[in-house]
């Protein structure tokens, strides 16, 4: 913890999200536990809820991410917050057998659901599953070629620490991709989206996943996500080059990418 405070002092404003859990103020340690609790609770219904909440559009966003990655064989892929496997499965389908794909998630339960899904889809034994924290990954320096984090960074307690950690594990030439909820650019649309997310999503969570609070957190955490350009700036600070973003669905989500040399 002291190390983190020193880092904060050194960087001025690093990790401003570490004590927000949605709109509540909590300690950094508590936040990590609370996020784990959310995903423990929703793991079984996570895939269904994504379809219901986004009308299936989350699949298109993930497909778009894969097109931007242009996955090739012989590379080492790390899917952080990889959970139930949506990104890793897509990568595997593109690259065939000859690539190492590791999923790392803070929540064990999400990985279990993911592993069961991989078996259901005939992909048993094609992935490595690790429970780990994006802020301190159990992987050596320069051991990854493509780092992805899809709908995960928002939930990380210390975002700047996680970005530096991503840069550490990436080998020279390695690429970082983050798919995440972002901020709608058109004010009119933003208003409609606000209404939908505050009024409808917690209700859906209550009906389908029997868990209103976790989906209330989801909505609030989206508001707290750094804006597109802010995240670019923080990626640059963390050591990425050519950091940039692409808005999808008018900025409802964005893909950030960066390079390590």
């Amino acid at each position: 913890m002291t190390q983190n405070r020193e880092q904060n002092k050194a960087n001025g404003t690093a990790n401003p999200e570490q004590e927000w859990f949605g709109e509540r103020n909590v300690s950094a340690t508590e936040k990590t536990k609370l996020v784990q609790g959310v995903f423990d609770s929703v793991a079984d219904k996570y895939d269904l809820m994504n379809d219901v909440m986004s009308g299936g559009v989350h699949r298109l966003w993930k497909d778009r991410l894969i097109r931007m990655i242009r996955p090739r064989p012989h590379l080492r892929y790390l899917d952080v917050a990889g959970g139930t496997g949506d990104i890793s499965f897509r990568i595997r389908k593109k690259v065939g057998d000859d690539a190492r794909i590791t999923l790392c998630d803070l929540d064990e339960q999400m990985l279990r659901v993911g592993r069961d899904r991989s078996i259901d889809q005939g992909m048993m034994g094609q992935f490595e599953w690790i429970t780990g924290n994006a802020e301190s990954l159990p992987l050596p320096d320069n051991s990854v070629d493509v780092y992805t984090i899809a709908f995960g960074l928002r939930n990380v307690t210390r975002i700047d620490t996680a970005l530096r950690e991503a840069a550490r594990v990436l080998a020279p030439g390695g690429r970082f991709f983050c798919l995440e909820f972002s901020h709608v650019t058109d004010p009119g649309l933003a208003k409609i989206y606000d209404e939908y997310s505050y009024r409808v999503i917690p209700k859906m969570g209550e009906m389908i996943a029997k868990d209103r609070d976790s989906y209330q957190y989801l909505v609030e955490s989206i508001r707290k996500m750094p804006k597109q350009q802010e995240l670019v700036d923080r990626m640059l600070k963390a050591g990425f080059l050519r950091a940039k973003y692409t808005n999808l669905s008018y900025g409802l989500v964005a893909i950030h990418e960066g390079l390590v040399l």
Partner: protein
Amino acid sequence: MTHDVDPKLLEILVCPLTHTTLRYDRTAQELISDKAKLAFPIRDGIPIMLVDEARPLEDKEIKKAR
């Protein structure tokens, strides 16, 4: 269905705190970081590489670096 830990995974994992290599204790199903003095559990074939979930090692369990 039970799962064994993937041998390929054991080759690439390091301690999340010290980034040093780990010892695999098959009987205990633990990955041991002598440097961090922590044992990370493997549950149902999934290594749990979280410091909060790790068991602190007792002195006699620690192997000095060769």
